[in-house]
């Protein structure tokens, strides 16, 4: 019986009474699709679309939407349908929404969630249903759950901050580095991997502090960090939190090189929010919206035209995820199939066998972790947000 959990039953009469319109649409789609002989890839996109973290979920969703619209405009054989679900940034909602997407909407692939904790909560569900799941979350444990259906279309926090710290130490010559992180899962793995990266270079953090998600005042932690006299500060995570930290660092008169601990610094909205205080900060990420880079220029331009804003790494990551799902379906003779999509993605396993997307040559290791080299960039301006690439 347990195997049947996530398989569907036909649409029930009760449901049709409750939401007649939706049933009608489903019925129309079911009856119409054979007539056009058009194959539909259903992709569920899950993330916070309302609530405090809605900005992040919307970037992700728009990246996926843009790619789907482009593909749908290019050819007629395969249609990509994006089904967006809001988890209100609550993990129990993420679980419910993931189940809904899988059992009711019969999706072929799932993109999401956004928060590491919520992504972690869904991994067992996609594993059981054998649906490929693509995520932008950076916490290390996500790909260590023994599921072959989870793919991180990005790099885990450890790979990112090894690059950042390496750059700060080797190129900039900083030696006294302090770590400030949130106390949740992703912050924890960030702090631990930063310390490891420092150890590999023969260094110790001069100070290590934590804060709780939702904190607004960091003077306690920054006070203790300042007392340790650091010359660089690597910090993560949280949108508002990091913007306020950048401001308080300046207000306390700390003279440190800011190092971005996660990909949030690559988000133009974040840079706008943090303003002057974040200028000059250095980060490693998978994607930066720089106009001069020809490989991604087309994407940045198309995204700006469609959504009137500059894309961020999350948008780019889901853009490429949709591309991979499309390529997998084409390779399967145009038939959308969750298992074949998963197998195709697992097949992207080395630089030689990679998918050339806007993020670079995308490939995954055995656990589904993204493994290509990141870009290192610097926040070059805040109004409007500008980035400078340092390693390309």
């Amino acid at each position, binding site marked *: *019986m*347990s195997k049947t*959990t*996530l398989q*569907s*039953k036909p*649409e*029930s009469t*009760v*449901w049709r009474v*409750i939401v007649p*319109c*939706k049933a009608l649409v489903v019925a129309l789609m079911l009856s119409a699709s054979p007539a056009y002989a058009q194959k539909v890839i259903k992709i569920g996109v899950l993330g916070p*679309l*309302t*609530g*405090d973290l*809605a*900005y992040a979920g*919307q970037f992700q969703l728009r990246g996926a939407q843009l790619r789907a619209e482009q593909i749908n405009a290019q050819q007629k054989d395969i249609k990509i349908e994006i089904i*967006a*679900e*809001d988890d209100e940034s*609550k*993990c*129990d909602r993420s*679980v*419910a929404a993931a*189940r*809904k997407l899988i*059992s*009711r909407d019969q999706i072929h692939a799932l993109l999401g969630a956004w928060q590491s*904790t919520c992504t*972690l*909560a869904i991994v*067992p569900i996609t594993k059981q249903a054998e649906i490929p799941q693509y995520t932008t979350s950076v916490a290390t*444990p996500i790909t260590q759950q023994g599921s072959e259906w989870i793919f991180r279309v990005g790099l885990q926090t450890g790979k990112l901050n090894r690059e950042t710290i390496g750059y700060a130490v080797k190129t900039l010559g900083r030696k006294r580095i302090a770590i400030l992180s949130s*106390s*949740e*899962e992703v912050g924890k793995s960030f702090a631990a991997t930063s310390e490891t990266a420092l150890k590999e270079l023969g260094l110790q953090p001069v100070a290590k502090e*934590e*804060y*709780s*998600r*939702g*904190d607004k*005042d960091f*003077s*306690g932690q920054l*006070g203790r960090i300042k*007392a340790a006299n650091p010359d660089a500060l690597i910090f993560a995570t949280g949108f*508002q939190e990091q*913007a*306020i930290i950048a401001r308080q660092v300046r207000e*306390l*008169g700390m003279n440190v090189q800011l190092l971005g601990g996660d990909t949030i610094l690559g988000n133009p*909205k974040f840079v706008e*929010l943090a*303003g*002057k205080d974040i200028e000059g900060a250095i980060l490693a990420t998978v994607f930066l919206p720089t106009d001069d880079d020809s490989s991604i220029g087309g994407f940045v331009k198309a995204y700006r035209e469609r959504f009137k804003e500059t894309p961020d790494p999350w948008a780019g990551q889901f853009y490429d995820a949709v591309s991979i799902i499309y390529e997998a379906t084409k390779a399967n003779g145009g038939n959308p199939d969750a298992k074949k999509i998963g197998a195709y993605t697992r097949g992207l396993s080395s630089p030689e066998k990679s998918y050339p997307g806007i993020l670079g040559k995308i490939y995954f290791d055995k656990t589904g972790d993204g493994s290509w080299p990141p870009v290192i960039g610097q926040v070059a301006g805040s109004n409007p947000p500008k980035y400078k690439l340092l390693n390309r």
Partner: protein
Amino acid sequence: MTLEIVAQQIVGGLALGFIYALIALGFTMMLRATELVNFAQGELVMAGAYIGFTLLTVTPLPYVAVFVVTAALTGLLGVVIEIATLRIIRHNRSPLLNLIIATVGIGICLRILAQMIWGAAPLRYPDGSAGDGHILVAGLPFSSQHLMIIALAAVAMFALHMFFQRTLIGTAWRAAAYDSATAELMGIGFDKIVTLTFGISSALAGAAGVLIAPLFLVGQELWLQGPKAFAAAALGQFQILGTMVGGPVLGVLEAVAAGHISSSYKNAIAYGATIIVLMLVAIPRMPAGGGMPPQHVRITFRQALGISPERAGAFNLAGIALVLVAAMAIPFFIDDYTANVFSLMLIYGVAAVGLQLVIGFAGAIIVGFAAFLGIGAYASAIASTSFGLPFPVPLVIAAVVAGVTGLIFGPMLRLPTHYCAIATLGFGEICHLIFVNWKEVTNGMSGISGIPKPRIFGYEFASDQQFYYLALGILVIVYVSLMRLVKSRYGRGLIAARENELAALAMGVNVRRYRTLAFAVGAACAGISGSLFAYFFSYVSPDSFVLVQSIAFLTMVVIGGLGSLGGALAGAATVVCIPEFLRVVAEFRILLYGLLIVLFMMFLPGGLADLAPRTFGVLLGNLRKNVPFSKREVPDASANG
């Protein structure tokens, strides 16, 4: 830690504290004039911050002018809200809780409207608008922003003080807050006083929003400052002057504690201090004789169908059997996802009937109820993962652990209604912080995953349909037990104490013990619900047991109808299903949900427990169309109820 940093921390705490005081003054004024706890106060702070942002970026006004204009505009917003919604509810003679839940609905609407107007991403006030850099005082550098905040807040509070002391309207307000009946006789219209109160407290919230925005950025999460400030108001004993002191004290306490003890438990300090102060000073020595009787006429299904009272027992039995058969048949007609939603509805139903016992029968306002769900969920998750105990055992453990916790914290129910609300709210927040920070046991924000599916005698409840039956079975057991409980001698004692505490005492009802017991039973129900929740998602994280969830439970009980166990189930169904089945309309669903709550409170004071039979009765012709909603047709001058 140098002197410089400590001094900066104290001034920072003071600045935040003055902001708390402004918001808290709104709570205090509202409570003194109308006994209403305005749960939308935090959202009005958020609205003020957003309005201030637009004024600063679109108009050339300087920060101080924006501060004044925003206060006026937010005040106006408050007046509109009061006249359009709350006044109608007051005139319906609805229970106080209905007003409180209406403000919850208003808050939900304000938050989602802010997202629709200003977008989801947080915003920043233009650089330097609220002062920048440092000012040297006694050789120490202080943030000019902090000093500016303290100055503006102090001016606002002084203006409020002069308004109360020196103006005719201010004096009239004080008269009405002191004794609204006499004031009404003197020609001071109570409606006008309430509108004025709402206007001023909204203006204070708006002003606080403009002050807090440069520190915290502008975002929806600013609403969380509301509950925090409520704690400050409670610290100040809900006295105007006390609140003005309580805010800064709380701010400094937090800043110093965060800097020197632990930032993880910062909020626990605020709420912990509040609970201790309340327990020490606010418990009435003598029973006040109050209570919270539902003031509307409730129609039961039996009356609606025209069945005589002699056959009530048989009718109730038949009714339950009918509902049960229908509930058993449902899974044959629905898909997995719908079964999933319905299961969640049944799980929350278990907690909702428990909360109904505490609110509807014991007459206490409990806000942090989700904490008991969390305690049950964690107890159950740990019992089944770390200790590998088989299914029914963790469920029983969850019920016992949550019930005992309820017993221990039972004395909170001795506090008068709104003190009880803030004490239990604080309790809920502290529990949430423990779930987040006690990592050795709860695994922090990552939560506990891999909870096995429940299994009895080798039969596994794995699919959504199977789980539905499990939840249904447990809900029936809990429901029938509670139904028998409220019909017993004990239950009648509880109802008597709710209707007239003094009379119940005179008849020998040990009110205190009865209420504590009700709290323990309600908490045990939440524990069972939490355990089912853990099994259902096979995952537990602190996110699920937050203030928003507690408020959702409160909403279930009130929408369902106070004092009706069946109503609580209907309320649970409404609260779970509406946002879920409205997913089609995306972000509008949250707006609709908030609006529905407000409309419900405005036009259906008896809740679903009253609406459903009433509709039936009128349709079948067994009921006159105009059976009054209200028990008392004579206006109650204080309009407290």
